[in-house]
């Protein structure tokens, strides 16, 4: 390789957890740094180089006018742009403001609301600029991030599985919490990546990796209703870290449109 790819790690509205997972890959960290040149990574280094970048890794959602501009500038100077985590790919938990009165929310928290310049929405990066690859999860899986970075550095496509969490439970031999315990579980419509953690902890999947491609929510919702779960319990389950991802959003709205529907 002529030179190491120049990588920028940039943060928007988020908890820092997804970029932290790079620093959490302790065993691989020094080796990854041999393959990639992190030229802008404020959480890790005081040397911040301007673009152009070969790969921009973006954490967080867009919640301010300034950030709408900042993401466009980053896109303009980056060859590839990878978004990481539920905030960057689906708007994150802060996207719940879509169902509230965000101006009222600001007035509730801040004594001087006129100083807060937050947008009424929290939107994914792909709503603003072209994104080359989306890596899901709240938080992301660090090994998947390393795979994506190494793949781009090597000029190949990342190899990231895209089946549902449900399949992972079958592979692991985890007893189905929905069948055996009657717990509402989003595993059948949620993307893999966590290793099907929650069912192994006796709880239903809460969808932190977002909807699986081609997920079919209505039959799952019907089964939840058949088991006796009320809409007021299911809507919060669908509206958390990936609340505005279309499949989860539509599923939540369908429950509210038909609160007693027991199809």
């Amino acid at each position, binding site marked *: 390789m002529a030179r190491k790819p120049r990588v920028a790690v940039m*943060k*928007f*509205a*988020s*908890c*820092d*957890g*997804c970029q*932290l*997972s790079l*620093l*959490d890959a*302790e*065993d691989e*960290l*020094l080796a990854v*740094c041999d393959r990639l040149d*992190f030229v802008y*990574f*404020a*959480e*890790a*280094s*005081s*040397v*911040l180089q301007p673009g152009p970048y070969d790969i921009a890794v973006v954490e967080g959602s867009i*919640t*301010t006018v300034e*950030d709408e501009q900042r993401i466009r500038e980053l896109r303009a100077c980056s060859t590839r742009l990878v978004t990481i985590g539920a905030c960057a790919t689906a708007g*994150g*938990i*802060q996207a719940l*403001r879509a169902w*509230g009165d*965000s101006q*009222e*929310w*600001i007035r*509730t*928290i*801040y*004594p*001087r609301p006129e*100083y*807060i310049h*937050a947008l009424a929405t*929290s939107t994914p990066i792909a709503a603003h600029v072209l994104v080359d690859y989306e890596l899901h999860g*709240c*938080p992301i899986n660090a090994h998947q991030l390393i795979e994506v970075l190494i793949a781009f550095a090597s000029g190949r496509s990342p190899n990231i599985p895209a089946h549902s969490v449900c399949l992972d439970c079958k592979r692991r031999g985890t007893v189905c919490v929905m069948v055996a315990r009657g717990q509402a579980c989003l595993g059948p419509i949620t993307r893999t990546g*966590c290793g099907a*953690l*929650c069912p*192994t*902890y*006796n*709880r239903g999947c*809460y969808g932190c990796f977002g909807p699986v491609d081609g997920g079919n929510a209505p039959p799952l919702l019907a089964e939840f209703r058949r088991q006796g779960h009320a809409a007021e*319990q299911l809507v*919060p389950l669908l509206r*958390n870290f990936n609340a505005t991802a279309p499949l989860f959003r539509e599923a939540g709205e369908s429950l509210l449109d038909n609160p007693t529907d027991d199809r």
Partner: protein
Amino acid sequence: MTDGETINVPILTRVEGEGALTIRLKDGQLDDVQLRIYEPPRMFETLLRGRPLEDAPDITARICGICPVAYQMSSVHALEQALGVAITPQIRRLRRLLYCGEWIESHALHVHLLHTPDFFGESSGIELARRFPDEVRRGLRLKKHGNDLVAAIGGRAIHPVNVAVGGFHRWPPREELRKLIHDFEWGLQAAMEAARWTASFPYPQLENDYEFVAVSHPDEYAMNEGDIASSKLSTIPVDQYPMVFVEHQVPHSTALQAVRLPARSNYLLGPLSRVNLNRNRLRPEARQLADEIGFPAMCSNPYRGIQARCLEVVHAYGEALEILRELDFSGPHRLPYQARAAVGRAATEAPRGLLFHEYEIDAAGKIVQARIVPPTSQNQGQIECDLRKQLTWQLTTATTREALARQAEQLVRSYDPCISCATHFLKIQWKNS
């Protein structure tokens, strides 16, 4: 970047979250210094309203990817207080073990990758590793142990899934935890070596007359439970926190900052405060090490926070080993409760200091109101106060503007600020003078 009378550090590096620093001068004297937080607000307290109380630990964890366990701990303790749930000693011990994992992970990250590079003029932990390869590798291994422990209990290191109101969703697999004992035996010794290493660092001189504030418990080094102790004022129960610590907006910066009544004074949270106030409840190996490395009593040099962090890592390894060797998962892993209309408050010790949560819940088990006061918003006022002191002194010496800015940033970094804990943080309007 400097222009005439204003020195700007446009982005603070090696901290969690996004902030900046502006220093204004007038006639060569310090006019003002501001720690600017431009992290966009995410409004957690309002998005919790109307949700099932069971959602609080998973949602508040997302305030901070570095200290999710702290948010889970403060939220479940506050909600259990509201519900009248008294957890069993077995659940209590497992929560302490989980917190030990987060302290080790968070402290080892700050010590090795974020803070130590400053003492040697390096820009990052990666650069530092060229000079101190063994020490940085050791630090990464310590950090990994912390992550491994959180993952063994909670399924994953960031936003673990096992913490529940009333206890845990299940007891973690014993064999996963027992496997860690060998690593932790090595880690305890390695953590002591790391503490000795930091004792040799060249510390800048800066002393401040702090009010140290931390949770304190008569029988143990406080993490999850205790009263709120202070080096200057009397100890109060956690329930009285809202009466004594108030948030306000200051005219020059518009950031919500917390101050201590009655004098509306600044106060300091975090490892330095904890070690100063609770030193005699550190485990013997950590206490002896504190004496061996000559860690001063009531240490008031903020740069030495790194040593307090190292002592706490030693403590956390010692305590974790003790719990790991005597795992007791008898009794229920989760206690039942009946929803009722009530208010609950709790403070626990996040790696960066006291984290206060308050919830009002209704009879249907929904959250009516939530209030979350993270440690970094409480430390903001004290950080600015310390910056003023350092800069006022430096301006009497022949220090270049670039060095002023660099050293101011280093001072901010020594508090391990977590700006992502954006609950109360404002977007600052900045006007150049």
